[in-house]
């Protein structure tokens, strides 16, 4: 079975030839360590803007899914204000000014958000969420649709190809100046926030239509909804403010029976059923340190959700090969029953994991992941 058929079967609730595999989020420090430990130089950090450079990394570890990223920003011109030894201060394509590390993978610090009031959103962002802007793939005037479809088709010879988009909440954090500022803005302006999320959700829906026309196999939305202590919003508020936007983004894919995956960090159990209602059929990355145990989730949601992730990076970091083998065997043994599981680490792969440990993890996933399951 090739990757495309394998993932299609898994997401369709069928038992494939083996569990899927997907790990593309590595810290730059991790790759640097691994290069020193013998990883070929051609295998490098995934660069969304240079898709063909990512293929060696994906094939090296046997990933099954290719994520085609799309520029959904308002497309402000970026301006560099100040550059230091290992940081820079710049205005980005969302119009926000932030300080970012240049030599390591880390979240930026927002110095001046573009949206501080509802009026800011209406004046500086709303007019630019134009799906018919001919620079956007969703536009009926987008001149490069044919090339995009060709690219998708070429990747589909080796991978299951999804369009990757940041979701409406995460999008808002880029506008409002990070998580804390966005939560405060939303809570103080709940009626407007509902409009803002829906506006962004509708914009993303129309972008998604363009990628469906180009032939993608599904959607992968990246929209963190929680932290270690639980979802950012109560289930009631999620249902009121964000769920309609998620439903909108999923709708064109759902209508065409194309799978909808969502990435969200954090402890999410209070809202998992709401995410399923919104239209998602797969959940990633299932962080162990916050209690998202893939085995428990399989029992509770296995009929409705494909589970992606759940391999504890703390165990991979230990270097204890027996512990790594037990981790992979026990997770696949339960989460892989009847299909519905794609193996991945439960978060960005940190530099505390040696190349040898990671290779061993991949080998164990192959060893225990073929059907019928040996685990």
């Amino acid at each position: 079975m090739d990757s495309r058929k394998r993932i299609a079967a898994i997401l369709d609730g069928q038992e494939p030839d083996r569990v899927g595999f997907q790990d593309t989020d590595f810290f730059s420090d991790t790759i640097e360590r691994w290069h020193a430990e013998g990883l070929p130089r051609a295998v490098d950090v995934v660069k969304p803007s240079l898709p063909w450079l990512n293929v060696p990394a994906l094939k090296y570890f046997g990933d099954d899914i290719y994520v085609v990223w799309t520029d959904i920003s308002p497309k402000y011109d970026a301006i560099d204000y100040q550059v230091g030894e290992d940081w820079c201060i710049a205005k980005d394509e969302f119009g926000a000014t932030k300080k970012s590390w240049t030599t390591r993978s880390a979240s930026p610090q927002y110095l001046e958000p573009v949206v501080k009031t509802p009026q800011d959103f209406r004046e500086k962002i709303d007019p630019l969420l134009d799906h018919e802007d001919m620079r956007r793939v969703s536009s009926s005037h987008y001149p490069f649709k044919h090339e995009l479809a060709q690219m998708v088709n070429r990747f589909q010879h080796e991978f299951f190809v999804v369009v990757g988009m940041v979701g409406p909440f995460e999008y808002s954090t880029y506008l409002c100046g990070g998580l804390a500022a966005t939560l405060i803005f939303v809570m103080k302006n709940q009626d407007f926030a509902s409009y803002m999320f829906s506006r962004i959700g509708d914009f993303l829906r129309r972008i998604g239509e363009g990628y469906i026309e180009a032939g993608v196999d599904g959607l992968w939305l990246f929209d963190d909804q929680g932290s270690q202590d639980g979802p950012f919003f109560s289930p009631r508020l999620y249902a009121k403010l964000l769920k309609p936007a998620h439903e909108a983004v999923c709708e064109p894919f759902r209508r065409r029976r194309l799978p909808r995956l969502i990435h969200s960090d954090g402890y999410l159990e209070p809202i998992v059923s709401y995410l399923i209602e919104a239209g998602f059929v797969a959940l990633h990355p299932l962080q162990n340190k916050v209690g998202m145990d893939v085995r428990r989730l399989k029992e509770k949601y296995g009929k409705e959700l494909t589970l992606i992730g759940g391999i504890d990076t703390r165990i991979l970091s230990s270097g204890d090969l027996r512990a790594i083998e037990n981790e992979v065997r026990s997770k696949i043994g339960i989460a892989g029953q009847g299909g519905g599981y794609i193996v991945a680490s439960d978060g960005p792969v940190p530099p505390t994991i040696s190349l040898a440990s990671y290779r061993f993890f991949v080998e164990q996933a192959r060893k225990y992941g073929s059907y019928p399951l040996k685990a």
Partner: protein
Amino acid sequence: MLDEREILDRLKDCIVNLDIPCVQETCRDALAGGISAYRAIVDGLSKGLEIVGGKYETKEYYLADLMLAGEAMKEGMRILQPHLERKELGTLGKVLIGTVRGDLHDLGKNVVAMFLEAAGFEVIDLGTDVSAQKFVDAALSQNPDILGMSALLTTTMPEMKKTIREIEKAGSRAALRIIIGGAPVSSEYGEEIGADAVGSDAVEGVNVCKAWIDRRTCVRPERHI
């Protein structure tokens, strides 16, 4: 016209209900009714924030609710602080807090700082990307009772160990209690690097700090790991 008890209870409820206009109106009512700013803060607003913290621990309130409670608290403090008497500015203790070098995350740290201030601590927030040397320099110049460090990345956690070692070298360790926190930070890690406590969330962190101050007569710092 509400009496003093009713106004203080209303202040508490305004915070619990996450109602900023209510906080603003009731703070003004408190001052107009002759209630001291200090009592309004300690017996009104702070009591409300304590209840919010409890609701967060029991998962009745979520992070967004906590942030709004913080904003409500800030708004009340903005109105009441100018009316505090100088002699009322004494504190439970002094806490130095920061996110370690290489890390720009500050959400957890800011929530902890908010609750510490509401509980009566003086908080010196060093911000983010704080080097070990900067923590040491601040510890030497500010003489805090407690040092709090936050890290959200496994790659920046080692800075916590480095900071503790530098504080030991500077001879300040014995006088200081150290609490660490952040998503990747475990009890085992805290034990390994010699921290006195690990806060699994902001509310627990504040409770540990309050417990330390309550037991200030202890000869050796108690460990909460």
